[in-house]
């Protein structure tokens, strides 16, 4: 198991799934890849297909329509996969919790490994979270 985790943590392919977000977390996630933060230093790259993913980044609250798709995408992902909820909305549903189109926090749909609150979380916070997550996985 430790070998698996070790290999996994050194090469993280991130699939970014934006639910019903305000786009800000999404843009900040992309920002992490750009020169100032450069997540590729840690072997983190963004991929286009869920089949290539090791990390599923969720951003935004999930409404009735996208929550169903989220579950599908999670089922289609090759395991093991790490799910990270980025931003307050993905963590708790936040301000949208009372809406008619959003009725549950996202952790009720799929298991989530890490929560990263903030509106939006700063890129530094995201990198810090990833580093902590890797530490946690290794400690498993």
């Amino acid at each position, binding site marked *: 198991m430790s070998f698996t985790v070790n*290999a*996994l943590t050194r*090469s993280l392919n991130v699939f970014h799934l934006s639910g019903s977000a305000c786009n800000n977390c999404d843009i900040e996630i992309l920002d992490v890849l750009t020169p100032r933060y450069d997540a*590729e230093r840690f*072997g983190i790259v963004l*991929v*286009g*297909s869920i089949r*290539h993913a090791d990390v599923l980044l969720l951003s935004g609250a999930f409404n009735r329509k996208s929550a169903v798709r989220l579950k599908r995408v999670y089922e289609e992902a090759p395991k093991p996969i790490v799910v990270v909820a980025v931003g307050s909305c993905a963590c708790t549903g936040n301000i949208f919790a009372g809406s008619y189109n959003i009725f549950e926090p996202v952790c009720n749909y799929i298991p989530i490994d890490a929560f990263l609150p903030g509106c939006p979380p700063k890129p530094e916070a995201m990198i810090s979270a990833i580093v902590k997550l890797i530490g946690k996985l290794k400690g498993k």
Partner: protein
Amino acid sequence: MVRYLVHIGEVLIFPGLLFTAVIGLVTSWIDRKVTARVQMRVGPPFLQPFYDIVKYMIKETCVPAGASKFVFLAAPLFGLAAVTVASTILWRPMVWPEKSFIGDLIVVLYLLTIPAVSVVIGSFASANPIASIGGSREMKLILSYELPFILACLVPVIKTGSIEFGRILAEPMAAASPAGIIALIVAIVCMQAKLTLVPFDMPEAETELTGGAYVEYSGPPLGIFKLTRAMMLFTMPVFLITVLWGGIPLHEGAVPAVLGAVKYVGLIVITVLIRNTAPRVRIDQAMKFFWGPVTLFGVIAVIVAFIEGL
């Protein structure tokens, strides 16, 4: 029997699978690192491509529902086998000139097409509409670069009247002549497409097709495809150097070998720079580009080669 065991050893260890894979992965690290530097980034650590491959091996394999399972899983293997054998055929004479040749220019030319074909077949076998688009683009790309690439490879054939690597390597290198230089330029452009790097990466076009031909691949099959690509990244420049630029003669001592290595790194850097200074073109534009100007230059190279031979 021993002879065959030696062959298997060659193909699995040196200069086949293991050697090509290691150098290919290092090359793909160079590619990513140079790309990162061009983009003002730091880039991945040295062992990153190796970690990636190992990671793919431990991931789960997903087979899409409507797919033909066997073809889906077998396609990557054939690509890998083809590039391994091509690399072995290329390297054997450069390492042990006394050993006989296994195949010639045409054989390797065909073998180097198979990885792309295996991508096409694999993408079709995955029964995904997006993969189908990617696969059809890959096939059209093969069609478009094949014509100028063949023309470029014919220049040394015209000069030596032979398709054997031994004869081609023995002749003064083709790149020293105008025809050879034009042919080399044409071949470099074609190589870019053969490696499906920007501006010719439309088969996988991540932002258009979410990974295109590879969209359904996960785990080990995807890892094999990535490994094959890394090996192609190593084998293609070596093929060009062998055919048009005098080869990398390891057996001739340190100086020619280092010179060959410099040529190789030079080709890689050119490729990476092209890749980072152009946007992706459309498939029909790529076809027009290859069948138009590039083929024209290929024809010019052939004509010049004939004139030189007079």
